[in-house]
């Protein structure tokens, strides 16, 4: 009897300790390092004093999302692109413009308008009446402060100051940017991606903290305010004084947005099917089956490809190694890969085959049809064999695989990170495609660290990657990734195959300085080189994974007639590509 009692008491204690642990205030220790001797100091930040009552986020007033966070939220600093928690730029901090990739238009946001007033001067007029979440007005001084932050090393738009002369506030609502040289593509890209931060909060802090600190709690101008976060989620609370309600007549319905950290795609699907998540931006295997099967799941399109395309998966070949240094060999690879099998079998038709140029459908206008007709490729193993035969790759020793023209054996590996399941299946297809035309190519699955080292260090043979090919306002971002220059010891930002061609590098640089209406000509030249030399083979477009359900929120965008056409996406960089407008269209479902 007493033993039982002990046990009950013990269990109660355990439960209690757990609850206490869960209720503790979040303490964040920040390690601050000065450039000289590293100094550690500890800043204890207690979370925003939350009203005691808000311990439950009612299901019908809360939008549950998932898909962005692959680890616990750790940063709310809009300068840390990619690292910041879901919604920091977009929900909390806002940009001067939004960009609508489907229409190819810039939408004035914090800015009322913006234009080049002379060849080297760009002027932005801010909307009158925008307030920070703490009630202070957002003025030109904040914009100037934000852009001047770019002078600090480590800020992602630091490059801007290589070609910008100065930025100044003409009056409270007018900002004037003066350039040494205009890089149109980079500039327009920054206009909708740099989030304006409040000068009055940031200027009191050290540069170190501004650039590398977690910036908790974040305080911006946007529709949502920081509520809380934990290992498992990020919680935003509606800002009832959001400027856009007054100035644009747009408001957001969900009182809370709870973004769940993804433990795995499997759990993400399980949660979604249980109705615990309204909008999932996860790659959910088999989602097509569920849509077809009449499950109450919605996607952008009702049938294949179901999703919009978000980026391009490339087959990178290491051009510094034999035989990948041979354009003929690379071209043969382009013809050899059975992309259709990847699209239908691996992805169950939720992705699309890529255009030979690799440009996303939203950039279709930049594809030079004539060049593609002349030099483009499609799956054709016979053609691949023919190219290889002509180039002298023949099976000399009769082992079923071709040898190089000089008679040396060809044994190649193609790699993707272990655990990236869809890519792992995909390269199995790529490898067997290559084997089918006589190239001895084997799939390899190092862990991500090994993958990344080989990829950036230039020691790999072949690999799949898509990191820098994301949807944006300009194909310049795409080409500057694909043809990153100069070639250095470590290439973490694209051109993994180390394709070295000064001509194309110059063209990409020229593209940056070319205004939109003149881009096509430059791009056409790039495409000719790209398709002739085939440094990397575009395979398929990864989807803008998005699936949602109507149980609690309606008014979702989709390809259907009458539905809005904003991107249903919570990933970083997509809130300012109209996802925030998608949010303003949502309405509570009739219960």
């Amino acid at each position, binding site marked *: 009897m007493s033993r039982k009692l002990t046990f009950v008491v013990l269990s109660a204690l355990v439960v209690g300790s757990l609850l206490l642990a869960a209720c503790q205030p979040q303490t964040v220790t920040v390690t601050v390092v000065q450039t000289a001797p590293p100094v550690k100091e500890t800043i204890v930040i207690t979370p925003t004093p939350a009203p005691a009552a808000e311990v439950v986020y009612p299901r019908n007033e809360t939008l549950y999302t998932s898909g962005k966070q692959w680890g616990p939220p750790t940063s709310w600093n809009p300068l840390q692109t990619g690292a910041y928690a879901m919604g920091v730029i977009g929900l909390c901090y806002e940009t001067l413009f939004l960009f609508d990739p489907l229409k190819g238009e810039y939408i004035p946001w914090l800015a009322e308008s913006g234009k080049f007033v002379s060849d080297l001067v760009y002027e932005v007029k801010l909307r009158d009446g925008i307030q920070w979440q703490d009630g202070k007005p957002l003025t030109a001084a904040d914009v100037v402060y934000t852009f001047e932050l770019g002078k600090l090393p480590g800020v992602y738009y630091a490059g801007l100051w290589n070609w910008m002369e100065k930025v100044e506030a003409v009056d409270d609502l007018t900002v004037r940017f003066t350039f040494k040289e205009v890089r149109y593509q980079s500039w327009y890209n920054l206009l909708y991606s740099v989030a304006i931060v409040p000068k009055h909060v940031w200027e009191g802090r050290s540069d170190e903290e501004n650039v590398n600190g977690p910036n908790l709690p974040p305080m911006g101008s946007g529709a949502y305010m920081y509520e809380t976060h934990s290992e498992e989620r990020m919680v935003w609370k509606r800002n009832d004084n959001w400027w856009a309600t007054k100035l644009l007549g747009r408001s957001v319905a969900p009182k809370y947005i709870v973004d769940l950290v993804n433990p795995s795609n*499997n759990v993400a699907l*399980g949660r979604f099917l249980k109705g615990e998540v309204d909008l999932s931006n996860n790659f959910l*295997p*088999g989602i097509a089956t569920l849509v077809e099967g009449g499950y109450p799941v919605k996607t952008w399109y009702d049938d294949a490809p179901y999703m919009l395309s978000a980026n391009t998966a490339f087959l990178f070949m290491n051009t510094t190694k034999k035989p990948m240094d041979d354009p003929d060999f690379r071209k043969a690879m382009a013809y050899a890969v059975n992309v259709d099998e990847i699209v239908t*079998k691996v992805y169950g038709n939720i992705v699309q085959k890529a255009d030979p140029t690799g440009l996303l459908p939203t950039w279709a206008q930049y594809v030079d049809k004539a060049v593609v007709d002349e030099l483009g490729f499609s799956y054709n193993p016979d053609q691949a064999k023919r190219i290889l035969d002509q180039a002298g790759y023949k099976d000399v020793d009769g082992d079923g695989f071709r040898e190089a023209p000089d008679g040396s054996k060809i044994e190649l590996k193609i790699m993707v990170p272990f655990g990236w399941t869809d890519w792992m299946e995909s390269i199995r297809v790529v490898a067997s495609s290559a084997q089918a035309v006589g190239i001895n190519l084997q799939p390899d*699955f190092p862990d991500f660290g090994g993958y990344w080292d080989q990829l950036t260090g230039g020691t790999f043979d072949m690999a799949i990657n898509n990191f820098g090919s994301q949807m944006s306002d300009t194909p310049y971002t795409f080409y500057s990734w694909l043809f990153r220059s100069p070639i250095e010891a470590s290439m973490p930002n694209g051109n993994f195959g180390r394709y070295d061609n000064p001509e194309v590098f110059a063209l990409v640089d020229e593209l940056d300085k070319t205004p939109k209406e003149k881009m096509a000509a430059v791009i056409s030249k790039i495409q000719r080189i790209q398709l002739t030399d085939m440094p990397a083979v575009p395979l398929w477009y990864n989807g803008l994974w998005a699936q949602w359900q109507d149980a609690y929120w309606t008014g979702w965008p989709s390809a259907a007639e009458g539905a809005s056409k904003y991107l249903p996406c919570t990933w970083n960089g997509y809130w300012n590509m109209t996802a925030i407008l998608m949010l303003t269209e949502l309405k509570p479902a009739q219960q």
Partner: protein
Amino acid sequence: MEREVLQEVEELKQLPRPIRSEFVYFAWRNTKLRIGVSILLLFVIFAIVGPFFAKYDPHAYIGPMGAPPSREYWMGTTTFGQDVFSQFAHGTRSTLIVGVLGGCLGTMIGILIGLFSGYRGGLVDEFLNMITNIVLIIPTLAVLIIIATYLEVRGILTQSVFIGCTAWPWAARAIRAQTFSLRVREFVDLARMSGRNSLNIILTEIAPNMMSYLLLVFILQFGGAVLNAATLDFIGLGPTRGVSLGLIMNNAVLWAALQLGQWWWLLPPGAAIAAIVGALYITNVGLDEVFNPKLREM
């Protein structure tokens, strides 16, 4: 010194001859042993023969996607249209190989360290015990990651070696304890008092009592290796090439087989592992009863 122990092990193996016929008789009469061994044999035969009946390359996309079991695809197909039966047949084979190899290696190292440690006692024992403890508590996962990244391709052989090299401490401990308790038993003391040397005592007094024990230890290591391999496969640290039951499970989970209703992809490999390991354990108890005459009546 090590050679001496090896010799001991060699001679240990030759000991059970006089009791062989008796052993077979009691073994056959033991229900647990019969059941356990039958199930095991079934799987072993399947592992040997199964792959010949598997019509397809386990990784090739040959059939309809996510089809339930049918006459053509006996155990259905995966979400990509791979034949689950082919995977299952090849997977059972490699899972058993990992079990046997890993189990053997684990037992061998365990015997070496355990006998030596228990026989010598004193500081030698303390030292070996420390090594045992260190291996026991060293994070196997992290070690595996390092091995995984250094070896470009992880195969089932690597996995077996790894499992064997990390699982032996339990065997060593058990064997050490057994040697230990035998060492201080009265009949050993008697033998010692009669002036026989240590090796002689080990061979004639301790070893006969250990023989059956070693077999039991091996069976447990075998089962443990199968389970360990399944866990490693499941959390994504399994072989990067080939198929195993754990890898089939891993893939089924990653591609949400259960949520999509493809139970035929996830359930069989897990059930097979449970059956194999369960059969091993039952065999273990059965053998125990056969070896230990006192237990036979039960």
